[in-house]
């Protein structure tokens, strides 16, 4: 329920915890005199973009001494008249100011994202900037934060406009071939069309390659430990964390659901997950845990397979993991078994022989030697994933893929098809996809879906 056309108010700095300063923002009023009843000092001579002190008061009662700044329309975030109030930040104080303003039905509590919605409606920020803002405000790691910021700055949009320019080149050379081939010569027009087509294809390829990485892997990468029951996953998990988190026993199937904890590597939070061991079981609770394990493994960014060389691994595939840990290698028999295993089965990924078995109190845990290697492996895989500036907005990805697919059809037909009318019609489908990427077409539907589905801005 948006408050279209009415003045809105909200605490823009979050109101869940006490803090020193909170920013309360009011947007969309016609005249400063509407705000006067709630302030002690006159707002008459308030000049835009200058910070002044004032006192918020409820009739004769002073509530808080605040700083405030006036942004006059259209030079404000939303394009409307805005006043920002910097109040003392206790949740109680913030709430009493908010309810003071909304009490008389002159100002209305903004719904989440409403300031940004208005900014967009009034042409202050573009659609992709809105999407960038969302990413930026919700970022928990440097990659998401940087991508969001560059969207907000309009850099990606620039790329899309470039793509549209390349499209226009292709379109133009096709038109040339239809309408003016007598003037420019058939061969010349043909050559130009192919060259422009190739240039567009290269560009859309590059963009599409930035859409390949799994979005959740970039925004919230998960490192999953898996293996058969009693392989020593929980033990190794504890070792990684440096403290006991998982319950460890020699009973098969001790960990029946997963346990997770974040570990920061080079500023990026990786969620490490210890999964339920995999084995055939009749026990329904455990089977449910195993099912979840499979799902986690499937969606994991980095997979660590834990193998107890003393037990013959049957239920897990060793092919698609990033790293293998052989436990029980402090026992000579364990080490021997692990070495035999590696000798018999050639492994595609790095592995370590780790000490300690599943049993034993925490203080007996040996210092974590190989962990640094593991961390740097995880880090470099993440860097690889993010080095080509992944595009993290789902809508853009869908559009880019659609543009790629429709253009690929056009380009293929270009070599076989002599009917220029049909070729042009194929090229037009590329155009309408491009329009939706840039936001030219059907902004109504797009906007509604964006603002209904995402809480954009704060």
């Amino acid at each position, binding site marked *: 329920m948006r408050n279209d056309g009415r003045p809105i108010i909200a605490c823009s700095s979050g109101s869940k915890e006490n803090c020193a300063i909170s920013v309360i923002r009011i947007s969309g009023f016609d005249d400063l005199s509407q705000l006067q009843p709630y302030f002690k000092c006159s707002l008459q001579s308030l000049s835009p973009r200058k910070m002044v002190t004032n006192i918020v008061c409820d009739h004769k009662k002073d509530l808080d001494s605040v700083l405030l700044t006036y942004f006059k329309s259209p030079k404000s975030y939303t394009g409307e008249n805005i006043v920002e109030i910097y109040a003392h930040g206790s949740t109680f104080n913030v709430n009493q100011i908010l309810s003071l303003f909304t009490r008389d039905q002159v100002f209305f509590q903004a719904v989440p994202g409403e300031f940004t919605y208005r900014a967009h409606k009034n042409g202050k920020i573009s659609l992709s900037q809105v999407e960038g803002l969302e990413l930026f405000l919700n970022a928990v790691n440097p990659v998401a934060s940087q991508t969001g910021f560059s969207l907000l700055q309009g850099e990606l949009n620039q790329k899309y406009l470039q793509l549209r320019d390349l499209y226009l080149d292709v379109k133009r050379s096709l038109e040339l071939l239809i309408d003016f081939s007598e003037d420019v010569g058939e061969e010349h027009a043909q050559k130009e069309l192919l060259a422009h087509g190739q240039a567009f294809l290269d560009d859309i390829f590059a963009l599409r390659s930035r859409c390949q990485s799994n979005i959740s892997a970039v925004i919230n990468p998960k490192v999953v430990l898996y293996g058969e029951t009693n392989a020593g996953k929980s033990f190794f998990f504890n070792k990684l964390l440096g403290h006991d988190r998982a319950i460890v026993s020699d009973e098969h199937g001790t960990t029946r659901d997963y346990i997770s904890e974040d570990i920061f590597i080079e500023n990026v939070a990786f969620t490490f997950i210890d999964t339920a061991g995999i084995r055939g079981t009749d026990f329904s609770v455990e089977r449910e845990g195993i099912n979840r394990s499979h799902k986690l493994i499937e969606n994991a960014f980095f997979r660590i397979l834990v193998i107890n060389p003393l037990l013959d691994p049957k239920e897990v595939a060793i092919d698609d993991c990033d790293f293998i840990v052989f436990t029980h290698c402090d026992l000579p028999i364990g080490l021997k078994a692990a070495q035999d295993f590696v000798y018999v089965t050639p492994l595609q990924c790095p592995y370590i022989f780790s000490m300690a078995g599943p049993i034993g109190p925490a203080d007996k845990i040996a210092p974590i030697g190989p962990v640094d290697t593991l961390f740097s492996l995880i880090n470099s895989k993440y860097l690889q994933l993010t080095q080509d500036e992944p595009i993290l907005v789902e809508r853009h990805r869908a559009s880019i893929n659609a543009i790629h697919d429709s253009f690929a059809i056009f380009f293929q037909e270009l070599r076989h098809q002599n*009917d220029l009318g049909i070729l*042009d*019609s194929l090229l037009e489908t590329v155009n309408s996809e491009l329009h939706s990427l*840039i936001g*030219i077409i059907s902004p*109504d539907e797009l906007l509604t879906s964006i603002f209904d589905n995402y809480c954009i801005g704060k």
Partner: protein
Amino acid sequence: MKFDILIIGGGHAGAEAAWISSFFDLRIALVTLPNIEIGLTPCNPSVGGVGKGQVVREIDALGGLMPIAADLSAIHYRTLNERKGYAVQSTRVQIDKKLYSEVVTKALVARENIEILYEKVESISMKDNDYCISTDSGTHLSSKLIITGGTYFAGRMHTGNEISHGGSIDSPIVSSVSSVFDMAPEIALSKRFKTGTPARIHHDSIRYSELTEQSSDPSARCFHSAHRFDERFQSQIKCYLTETNTRTMAIIRGNRERSPLFNGQINAVGPRYCPSIEDKAFRYTSKDCHHVFLERETIGGNTVYPSGLSTSLPTDVQEDFLHTMNGLEECSIENFGYAVEYDVINTTLLKQSLESKVLGGVFFAGQINGTSGYEEAAAQGIIAGINASLAIQGKNPILLDRNESYIGVLIEDLVSSERDEPYRLFTARSENRLFLREDNAVQRMSRYRAQLGLDVETDRYQEKFLREYTMLEKTCNETYYLPNLNNRDYFKRMGYGELQSSISLADLLRRSHLDPVITLSQQLAHFGVSFDCKIVFSCAISCKYQGYIKRQDVELQKYQKLQRKSINWRELAQSANISIECRQRIGRGQPETFFQLQRVEGVRPATLAYVASKL
């Protein structure tokens, strides 16, 4: 003497307007300049071309004169873009220009309710509810006016530094739009347009022996529906191809300062799409070889039109550069090329019916509206004639949709934004190219023709055509081939490809490796059914494109929802979020809807995206 409709100008727009109006039982006057022939083709002696061929057939379906006259005087037929698919094919004919004028004049003279007055218009005023037209030899009253002034209003011709007044060779001097219309001078556009024509060469001075010749195509299709597919009324001649070379271009480039187009003598704007040879020389500095078609102007006469060499250079330079070209080494010249600049009106002040918003009852058509080309002129002429006639009858005007005809595209483009340069129609201007074809002009235009309420041969022809077309279309959609052994074998033998499940005849026509027209003819012969070949042609092509057109319709509708939204150009012209250049263009174009904004030349996608996001 009072007329119902008085038409000023006897060129292609005026002739067409007079012709169609004469079927409405009205009193028509055609006022045209004393020395100038009716239906004159002062530039290229040809009708049709890519996009324009479609227009001529649309004119035909509305009952126009140009397609008849073009067929009767055609001396060379060609189908352009023949190997590029049916949707983009167009017919172009070379005409005998003398014969063409004669045919048009005779046709108009034969209409008893048209009075042709060879007079020069001096001023126009109002008298009671009528327009009063003062000419050099009297005054006339008329209820409606159609102005088709061509290049004659304040026309000025340049050959080097020689300047003469008039809109074409031998024309009298005509004053400016704003002085003839001193009751509403604002209708004139502030800038003037220019166009040009090449020198005319003597036929007997050309050495043809080394030139590539091009024969008339016997299979190219006549324009007029009542003419047989491949009917020819004149003996067909060849045209010849030569080209410019390094020496030609060097001479032109060496005389930049003597070209009125480049030395500042002419300020008017010329068409980018129909450049003079100077334009080609200075804009494409790396290209020296340009095609030049040598086309005879009349069969009986001795003049040849070298297409692609329009110029305003001084006579000695024209002679020099012509002599560098293969076959023209010894050529002598009848008339030198010239550039002509002329007044045009602001077409944003016209309604879609072509009636002026400022002067009620006055219609404008043709080159005075800033278009180039005989076909574009004739198209506007017929629409102006129809709408002036319907207005007298108290009926609603016909307004053509841009998705249904090139004439619709042309008129909507004209009235929706101010022109930067002379407007030439080509297929890229349409969003619906697969549908706007030559073969289906009757299907596209007949319901507009029916609105005229006339009942002559044309109307009966169209009814019959549509009836048979519908029947054949139904046959194509409802005839199925079952995948039995017999049919599979037959398909293989005919080279139709596999037959795995049952398909309709229409499906078969859509197979990309088959020519739909040949295939449909084969199948009809196979079934032992006979249809008129024009109907077979049109139906086969329609089936072929059906799926593409349907999909395009969906896109167009989605898009047009957005296009119809109104925008506030005044606000946009001030907006800090739009580049200065775009703002200026918006300020000049004054677009009222998103569609019109898109039409404003030079508006960037970024601006469109910005505006769309605000709608």
